[in-house]
């Protein structure tokens, strides 16, 4: 079973004034020059899935210049049922209200909480920028897993929001008051522990399951030459909420001195370390410090392939793949393995600047339905042979 996009409709999104694209096929190609609007299409589908831009852009940036709002409507089938998901952001010209706001609905019914929206449509986004997940700081790695866990596990997103909110309150307390009331701080920390403990537990148990899938794909793409472990390094190691709270208490004097929350899931690290492990700390440098450009690319690709596999496992359904410019970026061996991987999947949307890079793939896949769209001057045309 797999999720399948049927149709995408946009208004005022990025370069598109309006757009309506049927997507009923196993593989859908978008071919166009740089700046034509290919990534924007995948980005919109991503927003309909996790309410965030894969590019890290904010909602305002995605509104077409001069438009009061953007709107995205996605029709898709999941578990044999058709659904329609809609999200809009900006000023609603039909209302008097002047502030930017998000509106969501599912099959025409209004949804108020983001947590009820996220995680219905499952997508995996592949991009050359994925290398940043392995190549930049710990925040990018946490972000990758947090978005994934939010879409896979109901409740995770809400806990994350609660945690971030509590963290904000805690730092406001530090700022406004150099010696805050201990009972006040404890009362706040109980909320921090409640959310932090859930997030910590989820991250640790999920990464344990994620690691073997990741390793499998690294081995596949690198011809078994690369091997990495994923190690979660908590700044607070706790068995339960009470325990988490006690650890916060131990750090309190330090936190008060530095006026910030020095420990907790917002500071944890996710390390990619060489396998087999060396016996000394200095023999275990992180991937970001030692891997070659190609090895990093392999690891990034494997992360996303593992995301695909785990999503299928947890949700019992294959997610939709959104593949942005990736084919052009890969050398011939990696491209071969990646294309092979695409044979097993459900639906994929693939962007590229030139038809040549996909010619080989198309020749191999005469068995499936494909749609090939050309994007030019904000116009999209079907060019199936």
């Amino acid at each position, binding site marked *: 079973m797999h999720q399948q996009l049927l149709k995408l409709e946009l208004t005022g999104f990025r370069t598109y004034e309006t757009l309506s694209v049927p997507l009923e096929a196993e593989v859908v190609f978008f071919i166009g020059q740089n700046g034509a609007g290919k990534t924007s299409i995948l980005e919109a589908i991503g927003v309909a899935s996790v309410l965030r831009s894969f590019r890290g852009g904010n909602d305002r940036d995605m509104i077409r210049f001069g438009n009061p709002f953007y709107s995205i409507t996605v029709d898709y089938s999941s578990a044999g049922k058709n659904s329609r998901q809609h999200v809009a952001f900006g000023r609603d010209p039909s209302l008097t209200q002047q502030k930017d706001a998000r509106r969501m609905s599912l099959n025409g019914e209004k949804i108020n909480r983001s947590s009820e929206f996220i995680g219905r449509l499952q997508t995996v986004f592949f991009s050359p920028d994925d290398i940043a997940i392995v190549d930049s700081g710990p925040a990018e790695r946490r972000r990758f897993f947090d978005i994934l866990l939010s879409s896979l596990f109901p409740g995770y997103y*809400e806990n994350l929001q609660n945690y971030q909110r*509590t963290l904000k*309150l805690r730092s406001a*307390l530090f700022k*406004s008051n150099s010696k805050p*009331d201990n*009972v*006040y701080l404890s*009362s706040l920390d*109980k909320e921090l522990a409640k959310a932090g403990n859930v997030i910590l537990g989820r991250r640790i148990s999920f990464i344990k399951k994620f690691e073997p899938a990741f390793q499998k794909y690294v081995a596949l793409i690198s011809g078994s030459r690369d091997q990495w472990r994923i190690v979660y390094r908590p700044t607070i190691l706790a068995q339960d909420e009470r325990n988490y709270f006690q650890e916060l208490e131990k750090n309190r004097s330090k936190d008060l001195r530095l006026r910030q929350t020095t420990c907790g899931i917002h500071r944890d690290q996710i390390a990619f370390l060489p396998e087999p492990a060396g016996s000394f700390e200095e023999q275990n440098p992180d991937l970001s410090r030692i891997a070659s450009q190609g090895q990093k690319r392999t690891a990034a690709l494997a992360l996303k392939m593992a995301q695909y596999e785990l999503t299928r496992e947890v949700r019992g359904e294959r997610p939709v793949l959104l593949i942005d410019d990736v084919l052009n970026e890969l050398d011939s061996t990696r491209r071969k393995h990646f294309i092979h991987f695409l044979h097993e999947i459900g639906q994929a949307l693939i962007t590229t600047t030139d038809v040549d890079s996909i010619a080989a793939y198309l020749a191999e896949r005469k068995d499936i339905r494909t749609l090939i769209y050309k994007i030019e001057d904000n116009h999209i045309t079907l060019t199936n042979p």
Partner: protein
Amino acid sequence: MIPELERVVEQIAALPGIGRKSATRIAFHFLKQNQEKVEDFLTSVTQFHSKVEYCDECGALKSRHLHCSMCTPGQRNETLLCVVEQPSDIFAIEASGEYNGLYHVLMGALSPLDGIGPDDLRLASLPARVHKHPALQEIIIATNPSIEGNTTANYILSMMAEFKNLKFSRIASGLALGSQIEYADARIISQSLRARTVLE
């Protein structure tokens, strides 16, 4: 806009939940009414303002010259006391018909972003109230289901730790996090009161 209109629109728009557009509509509505009706309206607002106050005891809204109906002996179930953030929360809970106990209004919640600490709330008088009502068995903490509301609930639990014989409970979060009791409908309030959880 002529200055007289501008001034009244500005005043009305300063009310909570009312934008300039609605304010303009309300202003024109006043204009269409006769003098007497407008004066009635204004008198009721002035009287409301001068003849109403908060009860020293529980914090509920009461008429200045009358006893607080929430504190009148023999009228309420004195085994229960419900702690709320705002006097308006009392109306919402009363409307549910689920509760007939005492109240204690905090006049807010602990909120570091707004600089509201324990001393800014009606927390200090809470132990005294418990002593005053020997029949009291349970304190229901009905602060809003927000991080601030939860933090306030945690604070109350800690500061009241000496009352070993009292049961402390928290209204169930059938209310979405971040929602406000004041605006919740009666059915949801009575559900969350009935499904309240005991705090340890």
